[in-house]
């Protein structure tokens, strides 16, 4: 170990103040990336619960249509015997998706883990712009208030889908939730976008400029590469969504006509000015939202790589190909957005071009899967809780990725577009994939964050039950999609074609209810372990990367020494040393001998 001291850097604010002001600046408006990361983590976990409950509302209606819905029924529809109104169903799926995408997955990956891990993994003492970082968290709160408030606006919430296609979302008379609720929704999403853009700027600058000595780009852990490329995606794609959001606000509030055809009207309202094109929104929206789905998976892939390598006690197989694959996914991700629009009325020739690029994007994803398998091959696999979640990511991502090929094939998409086949696909990649990776990441980095371990037994139980019930909920959606079972229908059983699918939906809903209930185990484990988990030192997992060299939890300034990096983060099982891991900061044997 190097004996040079690099002290904890001071940041100029007075620690001497006691009382509320000190508490506020340390824990509320903190500029320490770790506190901000934890703030993101806890906020998003709470919204995860909200999103999950909204999903249960959907599953309830699909399993027991027009019956007394628990909690919601008595609260909102007691005069109708607890039976929900059809527009409430549109609110349920709109807000479920909105909450999960904008308030859970994106902020937990970038805001929570990105924030927490980036400086630690690269050997920096904090982010490049701590105040901007603090703002990026607090900009989420207006979004929380807007979206939370939209539930109380007339119509009980936005109901135009998370995709918010005009004219439905723009004509205020076209849907019950199309008034104030939809406006609040747009504002909320805009705030989230601003928060993410602030984060991107920070992450890119930090990773490029603040790496410890010896930390070359190709010695970065995959988590950092993923966060880096994700930040690029966010920075370049988000402005398009923000602009589109303002255009939609303009159409709704100020009489512009970007997305309305001439004479646009609905529900006998006075005709709007028009002169625009509804499809324009779809292009702008998906130009962001397709890269967004890669934002929602790449950090998870990065973290999974780190976890698998650590618990296989082997280097990651094909580090550079893995990095290029992430870059390939991101780059290709910018030129595939039209595959969401094959049926939209867009020129069919464009359908052909997007189909080719979409097919190609399966390639880097496949390469990554093969490399994860290669990492496990020949290793000494430790089946810890984080490893179980990481393995399940690989297994489930195979399903999600392969199902994507069906919808990339445009003729097949004619049939499965807007059916449950699509729903199955994205729930596999986002929940069975990313969310499982997130759980794994929480179990993995919890000791670093809190200096204690989460309970392994409860963790494994949580994994097992979640794994079983999620597959019960989502796998048969592929079958429903094959029948042509459409999305977003409050009562699909009106149709002869789908009437007999009720029992399968009931099975799925039971699995969904059990899956959400099981998360109580996780929540209890998390909260209990924060206060009473087994205390541990810096490196309970015997991992290589820099964050495991700092104290658990790291103090202000992160490292109590100056990290100097000698190798990549995946030298597990290296023949150069006796132990089965070889941290990045450990000097090579010959240099050590020089010192002695």
């Amino acid at each position: 170990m190097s004996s040079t001291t690099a002290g904890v850097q001071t940041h100029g604010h007075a620690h001497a103040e006691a009382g509320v002001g000190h508490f506020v600046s340390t824990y509320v408006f903190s500029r320490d990336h770790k506190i901000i990361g934890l703030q993101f983590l806890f906020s998003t976990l709470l919204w995860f619960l909200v999103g999950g409950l909204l999903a249960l509302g959907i599953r309830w209606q699909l399993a027991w249509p027009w019956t007394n819905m628990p909690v919601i029924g008595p609260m909102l529809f007691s005069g109708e015997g607890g039976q929900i109104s059809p527009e409430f169903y549109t609110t349920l799926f709109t807000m479920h998706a909105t909450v999960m995408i904008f308030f859970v997955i994106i902020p937990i990956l970038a805001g929570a883990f990105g924030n927490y891990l980036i400086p630690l993994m690269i050997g920096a003492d904090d982010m490049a712009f701590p105040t901007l970082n603090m703002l990026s968290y607090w900009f989420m709160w207006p979004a929380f208030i807007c979206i939370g408030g939209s539930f109380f606006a007339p119509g009980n919430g936005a109901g135009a889908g998370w995709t918010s296609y005009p004219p439905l979302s723009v004509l205020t008379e076209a849907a019950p939730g199309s008034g104030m609720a939809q406006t609040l929704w747009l504002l909320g999403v805009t705030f989230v976008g601003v928060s993410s853009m602030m984060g991107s700027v920070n992450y890119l600058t930090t990773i490029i400029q603040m790496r410890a000595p010896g930390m070359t780009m190709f010695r970065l852990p995959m988590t950092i590469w993923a966060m880096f490329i994700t930040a690029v995606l966010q920075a370049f794609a988000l402005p398009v969504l923000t602009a589109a959001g303002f255009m939609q606000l303009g159409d709704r509030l100020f009489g512009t006509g970007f997305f309305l055809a001439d004479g646009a009207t609905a529900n006998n309202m006075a005709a709007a000015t028009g002169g625009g094109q509804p499809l324009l929104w779809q292009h702008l929206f998906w130009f962001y939202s397709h890269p967004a789905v890669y934002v929602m998976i790449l950090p998870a892939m990065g973290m999974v790589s780190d976890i698998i390598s650590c618990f296989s006690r082997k280097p990651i197989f094909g580090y550079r190909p893995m990095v290029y694959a992430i870059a390939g996914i991101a780059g290709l991700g910018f030129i595939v957005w039209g595959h969401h629009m094959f049926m939209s009325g867009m020129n069919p020739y464009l359908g052909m071009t997007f189909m080719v690029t979409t097919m190609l994007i399966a390639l880097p994803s496949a390469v990554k899967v093969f490399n994860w398998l290669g990492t496990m091959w020949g290793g000494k696999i430790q089946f810890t809780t984080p490893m179980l979640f990481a393995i399940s990511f690989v297994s489930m991502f195979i399903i999600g990725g392969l199902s994507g090929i069906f919808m990339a094939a445009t003729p097949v998409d004619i049939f499965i577009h807007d059916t449950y086949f699509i729903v199955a696909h994205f729930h596999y990649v986002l929940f069975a994939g990313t969310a499982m990776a997130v759980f794994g990441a929480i179990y993995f980095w919890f000791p670093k964050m809190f200096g204690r371990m989460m309970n392994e037994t409860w963790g494994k139980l949580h994994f097992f039950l979640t794994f079983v019930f999620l597959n019960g909920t989502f796998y048969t959606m592929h079958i429903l999609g094959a029948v042509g079972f459409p999305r977003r229908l409050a009562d699909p059983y009106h149709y002869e074609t789908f009437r007999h699918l009720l029992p399968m939906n009931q099975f799925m809903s039971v699995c969904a209810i059990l899956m959400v209930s099981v998360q109580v185990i996780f929540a209890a484990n998390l909260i209990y372990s924060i206060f009473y988990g087994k205390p541990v030192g810096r490196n309970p997992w015997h991992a290589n990367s820099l964050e495991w060299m700092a104290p658990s939890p790291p103090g202000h300034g992160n490292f109590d020494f100056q990290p100097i990096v000698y190798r990549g983060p995946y030298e597990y099982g290296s023949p150069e040393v006796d132990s089965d891991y070889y941290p990045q900061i450990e000097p090579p044997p010959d240099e050590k001998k020089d010192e002695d």
Partner: protein
Amino acid sequence: MHTPRSIIRPLLLLGVVALLVGCRAEDARFRMDMVYVRKQENATEIPFTRAQLLNLSNVLAAVFGTPDDPDILIDGDIGLHEIVDLTNLKMAAGPVGSDEMGFPHGLYREHCSHCHGVTGNGLGPTAAFLNPYPRDYRQGIYKFKSTPKGSRPTTEDLKTVLINGVQGTAMPSFALLADDEIDALVDYVKYLSVRGKIERDLIFEVADELEEKELLVDPEEPDDGLETVKMYLTAEVRKWASASNEATAVPAPPASSSDEDRLDSLARGRELFHGTLANCVKCHGETALGDGQTTDYDQWTIEIFTKEPQQPGIGEFVALGALKPRNILPRNLRHGVYRGGRRPIDLYWRVRNGIDGTPMPAATMKQPGQKGLTEADIWHLIDYVRSLPYEPLSNPHYGGHEAVVERQRL
């Protein structure tokens, strides 16, 4: 270090209990027409007591049952059984589902209640967001029927509306339902309509005829009150039963075999449209775009708001659940959208009988010694109206009928 597990378990238990407590909704129930109650209270300046309202509620429940369990008072020759079938009612009523034998129930709640309300009051959760508002059955007034103003619609009229929907509104076509399901829903609408009308009549009775705080049906001496109820019920059922006799016959249109005849008819129709006999342009406008008279209200609105909606008290009605008043606009005849149906007989009925509940008046028919329209005149008018959407002036800029982008084969 004390074990914190003891905190977590009770908390979890509490959460589960709280969830279960919030799990059961009350059964669906009919809502009293508090807006009408308030209107009567304002007129008489005597408030209703809770006991009176409860009494009214119980009387109605005794006569008509609940949304889950409908009833028809059968007492000798008095009852709804003349105009509805109890089996049909049972199929339409109740929560959505089917009984042990597999017979469906809850058709009304599945298809109708979220707009028309469980009570048939046009105040379902979706109603506020629709334009026009869904029908409130409780006054027994229906717009699109074959009978004149003041009469009830025939069963066939209601069925037609259900099967065709109302074009240009949110009322969809239910043609794809089975015949017996449509019959069940028609009967249930009649049932709700009669119930609503009786409720109004009884509220009026309590406000106008009874002493302050006097109950309509005194539990100790129910006979007087029940007689009143039966009287109103009989009257209303009679009206429904006689509707089919009151349907307006539609004579065949005058023969028009040649183009010249047709052009003559159109010319005559245009003349009548713009003339003083029919006076169509007063409301429908010189251009027939419906811009002649746009400040009027329909019957259901006027009843509460009158023509000065700015007067105080609107807020209190809205607070009691009434929907915000909207003007009723005369039809834009150049769209080719005919809410009550596009068949010639439908248009004939609209012109001949007017549209009940709206300012559209019945035609003044020719009487001996008095000016008026003849049957042939009405047909000429209808010919003209039907030709309007095809005039060059009618090239609509509403509704997107013009193709902006036509995908050509490249």
